[in-house]
């Protein structure tokens, strides 16, 4: 840990508290949380990679995927990352109106992505890939389900953030809160980038 011997006044982070590294506690906590989430999604992805061939006599991965649709939904999640960044940059410019607009657009795009997931799961289920059909299906649904829950929680946070900004109830530094929500959202998008390539594009 590089010992940042920085003189005192620079140590006051924009939260107003004294801090030894000049960084905000919340952002440090969020990055640590994302670091530990790597382990969580890493475990789920490696379980999926182990069990992807295990569907004795049942539907295999490539018989079920609908690559065009999934790439469209990946495109949507990517764009929601863009709108999130625009929301953060307008928050930094203290332009509340645009922040709210871009946050709602991000939430809407996220909702579209989740709708796409629900659609995809229903079609797989109709095609005979239930949660308990085979090891491949159990591990696939668990991985994408966990990711879907993270996206949905993110959307609910985004929508309530819009509500909080409009009612001016945001506790602490508004810029930083929007930035932290942005970090969470980008992490969820980054995890989908991994899932999209490893699960869908690499044929079993």
């Amino acid at each position: 840990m590089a010992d940042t011997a920085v003189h005192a006044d620079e140590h006051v982070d924009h939260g107003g508290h004294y801090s030894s590294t000049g960084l905000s506690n919340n952002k440090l906590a969020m990055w640590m949380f994302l670091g530990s989430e790597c382990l969580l999604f890493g475990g789920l992805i490696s379980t999926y990679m182990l069990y992807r061939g295990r569907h004795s006599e049942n539907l295999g991965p490539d018989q079920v995927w609908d690559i065009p649709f999934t790439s469209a939904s990946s495109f949507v999640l990517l764009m929601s990352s863009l709108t999130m960044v625009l929301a953060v940059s307008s928050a930094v410019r203290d332009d509340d109106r645009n922040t709210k607009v871009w946050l709602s657009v991000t939430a809407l795009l996220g909702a579209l992505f989740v709708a796409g997931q629900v659609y995809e799961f229903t079609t797989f289920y109709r095609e005979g890939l239930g949660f308990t059909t085979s090891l491949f299906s159990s591990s696939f649904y668990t991985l994408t389900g966990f990711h879907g829950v993270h996206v949905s929680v993110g959307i609910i946070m985004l929508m309530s953030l819009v509500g909080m900004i409009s009612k001016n109830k945001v506790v602490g530094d508004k810029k930083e809160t929007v930035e932290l929500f942005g970090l969470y959202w980008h992490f969820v998008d980054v995890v989908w980038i991994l899932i999209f390539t490893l699960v869908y594009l690499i044929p079993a």
Partner: protein
Amino acid sequence: MSTVTEQHDTHGDEHADHGLTDLGYIKIAIFLAVITAVEVVFSYTQDQLGAAFLPGLLILMAVKFFMVLLYFMHLKFDSKLFSLMFYIGLVLAVGCYAVFLATLHFFQS
């Protein structure tokens, strides 16, 4: 009785956030969309690519991963401590799970 919740007025010593401009972000987003499209094309032309298929896909994935990480998540411009926190988690995850899959003969053809 003032009922406005404590609103810290952020005093201006915030170091200039020299991230990208909005236009810069849009350019990156388009670049990522193009890479996604290339990846999908890769997945359809597996047999033409032969051996370069798997490494190609993985490299494209890594490029997208780090693009979003460094630019959208501002890791490139923020303090090294944030990158350290995230990269310890990433390295541990990739390392441990790679060894775990290796012991289960995952990488044998």
